[in-house]
Every structure is written in structure tokens, then in C-alpha cells.
């Protein structure tokens, strides 16, 4: 929080040099306030898009990770193929493909929001799968054996014994993915999603002050992500405290 204050002060001072024109987002003027509100209104979709996408990608990632841990070769091959293919496609390309390509292929037309969610979730699911696989593999064999010794079946073993422990361990990595997702959601602006970046683009086009507007955009992401990071850290601490 301190670094944001310093950065903001620096930028305000820099505004005195004449190259800056902060009037465009100055909340003390009616026009500036409207512009600022316009920019902030993108926050809703940035958050909604990212949170929806990561919720789906976590589930998808887990569903892809489990076959990767199977003793059967075919299942493991499915996991490897999925991860390798999905990981190789750039997110922006995936967004364009889902929005423009998928309707032509399947006849299913997704609106901008769901196309964005699907592309982000697909792309992230490959990484989630790898994170889950690592987390689950880090749980000792003794835990599986103890679960067997009380006759738990595979589903209950995963649900009550392995995953709760694995998720605790991968929480920092999941937090990273959420931050990554918040940033990558800016790419969905290219298909017209009215999130932070798109709002900034539109305002910049009408106001001709890209420097100030994109600086505000940078600060918006910065604050958003710092808040999310703090939240994730608190969650980690709480989970550790519960076990101590």
C-alpha cells in the first residue's frame, strides 16, 4: 500500500511538468468524475470474468489431473495430451478462436462474456491440472494406506483425505493463478468485453489522453491484485492456524 502511495505521489508531481493532463480523470471536476467512474465501472466485469473463469478452471484442472495420477497408461496419456495441447495455445489466440471460430465449427454462439470465460478457463485448466497433480503427488503414501485401512473408497479417499491436504499445499500456487487470471482477463477486451482495459481503450479514443488513462488503468490492476494477494495470504494463514 505504501508503494502505491509513493507511485501516486510521483505521478501527481510529474503532472506538474506539463506533459500530463490529469484533468481528464480529475474527480473534482464533473467531467473528470464521469470519466473516472466510467473507467472504474470495468472493475465489475474484470472480477466477475476472472472469478468465474478460475472457478471453472479449478474444477476442470482437477478433472484433468486425476487421470494423470492413474496407474493406467491410457488415462495418463489423456492427461499429457490435454496439458500439452492447451498449454501451447496463446490465450489471445484461444479467445479469438472461441469467439469467432467455435460458432462456425459447432453452431454454438457464445456471448462475449461466456466466450471469454471459456477461453480463460480452458487455458488456465492446463496449469491447474499440473498444480493439482504436483499437490496430490506430494501427499505421502501412508495417507492412502491409512484410508485403505479404514476401507474408504477412491472417491472418499480423495474427497476427505487427499484433496483437503493437497489444496492446503497448493493454495499459494492457486493464488498466483488467480492473479494471473485477473491480468489475462484484459485480453478479453479484444472481443468487446466491457472490462477495465476495454473501458480505458474507449475513453482514450474519445479523450486523446492515453498517458493519464492508461496510468489509471495500471493503478486499477495494481490495487486489485494487491488486495487479492493480501486476501489469499490471509486465507493461507488461517488454514495453517487451523492445523497448528
Amino acid at each position: 500500500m505504501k508503494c502505491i502511495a509513493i507511485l501516486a505521489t510521483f505521478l501527481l508531481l510529474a503532472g506538474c511538468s506539463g506533459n500530463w493532463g490529469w484533468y481528464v480523470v480529475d474527480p473534482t471536476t464533473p467531467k473528470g468524475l464521469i470519466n473516472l467512474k466510467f473507467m472504474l465501472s470495468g472493475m465489475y466485469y474484470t472480477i466477475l470474468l476472472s472469478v468465474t473463469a478460475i472457478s471453472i478452471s479449478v474444477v476442470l484442472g482437477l478433472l484433468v489431473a486425476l487421470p494423470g495420477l492413474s496407474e493406467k497408461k491410457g488415462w495418463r496419456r489423456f492427461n499429457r495430451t490435454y496439458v500439452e495441447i492447451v498449454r501451447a495455445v496463446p490465450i489471445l489466440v484461444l479467445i479469438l478462436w472461441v469467439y469467432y471460430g467455435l460458432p462456425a465449427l459447432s453452431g454454438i454462439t457464445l456471448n462475449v462474456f461466456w466466450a471469454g470465460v471459456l477461453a480463460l478457463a480452458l487455458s488456465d485448466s492446463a496449469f491447474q491440472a499440473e498444480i493439482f497433480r504436483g499437490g496430490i503427488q506430494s501427499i505421502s503414501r501412508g495417507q492412502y494406506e491409512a484410508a485403505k485401512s479404514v476401507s474408504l473408497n477412491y472417491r472418499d479417499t480423495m474427497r476427505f483425505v487427499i484433496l483437503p491436504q493437497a489444496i492446503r499445499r497448493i493454495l499459494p500456487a492457486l493464488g498466483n493463478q488467480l492473479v494471473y487470471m485477473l491480468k489475462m482477463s484484459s485480453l478479453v477486451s479484444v472481443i468487446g468485453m466491457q472490462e477495465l482495459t476495454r473501458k480505458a481503450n474507449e475513453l482514450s479514443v474519445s479523450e486523446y489522453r492515453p498517458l493519464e488513462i492508461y496510468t489509471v488503468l495500471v493503478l486499477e490492476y495494481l490495487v486489485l491484485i494487491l488486495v487479492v494477494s493480501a486476501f489469499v495470504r490471509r486465507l493461507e494463514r488461517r488454514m495453517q492456524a487451523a492445523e497448528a
Partner: protein
Amino acid sequence: MTNTAAPMIEPVIKMRDVSKFYGDFQALKSVNLDVSQGERMVICGPSGSGKSTLIRCINRLEAHESGQINVNGVELTDDSESHDKIRGAVGMVFQQFNLFPHLTVLQNLTLGPRRVLGLSDTEADERAMTYLERVRIPDQADKYPRQLSGGQQQRVAIARALCMESKILLFDEPTSALDPEMIAEVLDVMTELASSGMTMIVVTHEMGFARKVADTMVFMDQGEIVEVGPPDQVFTAPKSQRFATFLKQILQH
């Protein structure tokens, strides 16, 4: 009216020519073993002799390559249905306790009864408390495993196995990971359990416990059962040189 067929005393565990390999290394060499209902068996032997492998084959934590294992009337095959049936009849206590670290003591005990035996929460809690009292730590029910000493953790693990009310209990070196001052509290609980008529197979080096509790003493070396018999007999007059040497080594100190 008088259908008096003599009661067949079928062994509750029957192993015939059981062999097990790890790569080229043969961990079990055609092992034959019978355990009858209520029998208390102690298995000892040098490390690497296959004693842990032997009991881990009984509940299929390890798969045997050849031979037959029959537990509680069920033939152990590759079919997972047989694994489930057998595991329902066999509980296990591990060297490293293997408690579930993210669950409280009570939750550790009730997970199996609730999910597998279908007990209600209250029934499972009641049963858990009964067995926690039996291992003498009812006051630790709401703690997490890592808040307990090693001896307490192992007693929780014993209570967890008891909660499933299975016929047979396997102990895989239950005191080997414990500090010396905690061994007694765990052995006490096990001794008490033995007097309740439970079928127990215990892999251990605690010869005092074996002498006091065991009906049958088994000595293994290099994947084979070298000596079997009542403790009085095998301790005082070991038939094999290998067992005599082993006894001398571990009783020296």
C-alpha cells in the same frame, strides 16, 4: 435333531505358498501361515526379512505374485471386490501412525464409521469416544494430531482401527517410531486389547511384549518363516541357529 458336525476350526487367515518380489529381490519365499480366530501372533526378524511385507499382503497394501491368501473366508484376488471385503475385516496400525493431519482426533476416528459403515454423526461420535476412553485419551478428542505426542498419536491410530470393529488387527512395528518413554503406553494399550480376544498380528521387536501376550511367535529371515511356536518354547529352545543368533543380538542390551 443332533446335527453335531464337529466345529471346524477354520483359520481366519490362511496363506499358502505366498511369494512376493520387488524387481529381482524376493521379499517373500513361499510363505505358509495360519492364524486362527482370537490368536495373538507376534512376528519378529531382522530388517528386510519380509515381516512387514507379509502383513501388508494380508490387506493388499502389497500385491503378492503367487500363492493363495484367504482372509475371513474370502480369497484375495486381483478383483478389487475381494480387497474391499478383506479390508472390512482387517484393521491396521502403522509404524508412522498415518493419522490424517488435517482432521481432529475425533474426525480421524469417525471418518471410516460414517462413510463406510454408514453410522450417523452421533453414533460415530459415541463409538469414537468409547474407543478413545479405551486408549485412555478421551480428553484429546478435539485436538489435531500434531498437537499430540508420538505415543498419543499411536494410541489414536489404534482407536481409529478399533472404530471399524474389524475382526483382525495388524500392527506394523507400532512402537518403532516412538521415543523410548512412550513405548510403554502403547504396549499397555495393546496388551489390554490382546486380553479382549481380538485377533492380532504384531510385527515388533518388543520381546517382552511378545513373551507376555503372544500365543504364537513367528521368526522370519530372508523372506522365509524360519521358526513358529509358542513363545515359551521358541524363546527357551530355539530350533534354528538363525533365531538363536537374532535373539542373542536383540536381548544383549
